[in-house]
């Protein structure tokens, strides 16, 4: 914008000098015309009378030179090289016959415009050259010029002010549009790769068009990479499932203790790797979603209820009681997929670490604050590690013999943090671990 105003200033100055310059030329040529006419009329008045040059200077020759500023007029008349009349110190330039020359010089301490012209008179066997110089001060001229300059300055200042205003308006209009476009790019959710449809000024159309084509390409490559991840997961998990099913079937037929032990270890290794792979993918997705949190209105009770229903068969396999206690409805604005995944991880832990015939309590409350709690009846968290457990890949010192990747609590903590909440770990006084998701 400053470039624009600076440019306008330079343009205004140029304009000013251009106007002034052409005014000087116009005014000067006006003065020259009058001076020329005056000189010509003096020359025309020269006649030879009986071999003697006679010049009766017409009254009009000087009256036409009168100006409102009372400019002074000087003249000099020569016959050949002889001075006839006027001011003898007025320098006279040699000119060709009937030709008028103009010159600005200093005379008696003032700038004057000097006009010189000559005429050859032909008498009886005699040629006489008459030369006339006519000078006029330039007070009226400079007065007119000052007036014009003033007007020009006024006009140019107005032009500058208007141009500055216009440039302000133009920049803010374009920048405003650009800002709005920037905002709408910034505010977009992670999944939103639809083209921009807001009305944009014609000048910005190419930008929007190329942005939209970028969006389309991004959308394409994103969906391709999503497909790729799904395909990769499919490729890895399917053979793992094959191995696991065969291993389970083989275990049914094998009696030797060492063999059985080996097969059990195989199955556990498969479970461990598939769980770790799953949680790594989940963790990546959760980090992405948490960075671009998209909140929607949900009922936490319904959400957790669905999860508990799904996990009940797993709890039953261990004869665990999965109890859900909730307020009637706990409305909340958050990302349901993130919250469900966080609670799922807490529940997985609770089911894993609870001994058979135990109880896992899940509660969802709206008061005093919105929280989801998962408490089990296992050994509890090691007291000394309560602060470090939610660190990536860290597992409790008493987690030996259970399958886990050490990402579960990290995921829950990241989800809580993304919603502006926290994860609290504690042990129940009567035994068992408690994880509280405060939202």
């Amino acid at each position, binding site marked *: 914008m400053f470039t624009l105003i600076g440019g306008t200033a330079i343009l205004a100055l140029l304009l000013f000098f251009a106007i002034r310059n052409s005014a000087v030329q116009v005014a000067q040529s006006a003065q020259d015309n009058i001076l020329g006419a005056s000189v010509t009329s003096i020359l025309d008045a020269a006649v030879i009378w009986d071999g003697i040059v006679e010049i009766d200077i017409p009254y009009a020759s000087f009256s036409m030179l009168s100006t409102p500023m009372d400019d002074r007029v000087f003249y000099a008349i020569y016959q050949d090289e002889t001075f006839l009349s006027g001011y003898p110190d007025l320098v006279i330039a040699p000119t060709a016959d009937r030709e008028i020359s103009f010159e600005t010089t200093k005379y008696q301490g003032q700038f004057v415009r000097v006009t010189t012209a000559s005429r050859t008179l032909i008498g009886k066997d005699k040629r006489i050259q008459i030369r006339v110089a006519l000078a006029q001060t330039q007070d009226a001229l400079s007065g007119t010029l000052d007036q014009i300059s003033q007007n020009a300055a006024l006009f140019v200042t107005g032009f500058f002010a208007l141009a500055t205003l216009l440039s302000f308006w133009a920049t803010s209009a374009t920048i405003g549009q650009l800002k709005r476009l920037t905002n709408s790019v910034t505010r977009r959710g992670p999944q939103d790769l639809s083209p921009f449809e807001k009305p944009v000024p014609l000048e910005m159309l190419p930008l929007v068009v190329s942005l939209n084509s970028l969006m389309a390409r991004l959308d394409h490559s994103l969906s391709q990479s999503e497909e790729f*991840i*799904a*395909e990769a*997961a*499919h490729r*890895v*998990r*399917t*053979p*793992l*499932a*094959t*191995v*696991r*099913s*065969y291993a*389970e*079937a083989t*275990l*049914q*037929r094998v*009696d030797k203790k060492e063999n*059985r032990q080996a097969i*059990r270890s195989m*199955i*556990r290794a*498969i*479970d461990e790797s*598939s769980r770790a792979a*799953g949680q790594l*993918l*989940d963790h990546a*997705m959760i980090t992405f979603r948490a960075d671009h949190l998209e909140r929607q209105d949900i009922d936490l009770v319904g959400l957790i209820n669905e999860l508990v229903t*799904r996990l*009940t*068969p*797993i709890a*039953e*396999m*261990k*004869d665990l009681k999965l109890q859900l206690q909730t307020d009637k409805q706990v409305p909340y604005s958050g990302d349901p*997929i993130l919250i*469900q*995944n966080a609670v799922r991880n807490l529940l997985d832990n609770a089911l*894993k670490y609870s001994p*058979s*015939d135990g109880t896992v309590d899940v509660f969802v409350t709206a008061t005093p604050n919105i929280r989801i709690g998962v408490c089990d009846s296992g050994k509890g968290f090691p007291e000394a590690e309560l602060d470090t457990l939610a660190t990536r890949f860290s597992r409790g010192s008493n987690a030996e*013999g*259970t*399958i886990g990747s050490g990402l579960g609590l990290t995921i829950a903590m990241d989800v809580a943090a993304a919603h502006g909440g926290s994860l609290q770990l504690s042990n129940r006084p009567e035994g068992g671990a408690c994880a509280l998701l405060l939202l």
Partner: protein
Amino acid sequence: MSLTCAGYRRKAGHNRKNKAMKFLLVEDNQELANAISSRMRIDGHVIEHAENLGDATAFIETSEYDLILLDIMLPDGDGRTFLRKHRARSMDTPVIILTARSQISDRINSLDLGADDYVTKPFDHAELEARCRAVLRRKAGKTQTVIETGGVVFDPVAGLISVQGETVNLRNRELRLLEMLINAPGQVFSKQKLADRLFSYDEDVSENAIEVYIGRLRKHLNSSDLKITTLRGIGYRLDHEP
């Protein structure tokens, strides 16, 4: 164990073959399909395998299944499309989806399209069985799925056992244990085989832990004609002793 969901839709108890559950497995990976089938046949289930959606459609038109196990990524289409068509024809055969994707992304989609449940590959067969039981319990309500023998009425789907008119709700492990024994009366089961079925692979339990559950079952069967006999050093056997 056969029959977690044993005898569903059939009056059971006379012929063991009859009580077998009939599954349709829709899975394009031949190896995995073989592995799953051989694992399930051990439990006495009947399992038929369709490699693609076209075959699957032909199978369900000609035969009746207790449950369909459906893979999502299939060579001739998406399993979920099949599911939608299947539901549109008001077929109410329960469907459990086998998914290899992350659970987050597929969750809403598959359950919304009318799948009854899903398991993520690789899956624990005990979990599949538990989910299958839960699905059938929801679908069947109180159907005639009972086994009657030796003064005991056993409903494996509901998890109920009635001895001389007195009904007891079985815990899950008691239920699975009884199921195994009652489906093969007179057959000896070693402690380790029973333990394999009752405990998950990530639990380090001693084989003696099975004794607790045998003890509980004996208590439930106390006043019936069914007896669980201990064969020291070998295992257990269910006997019918009038």
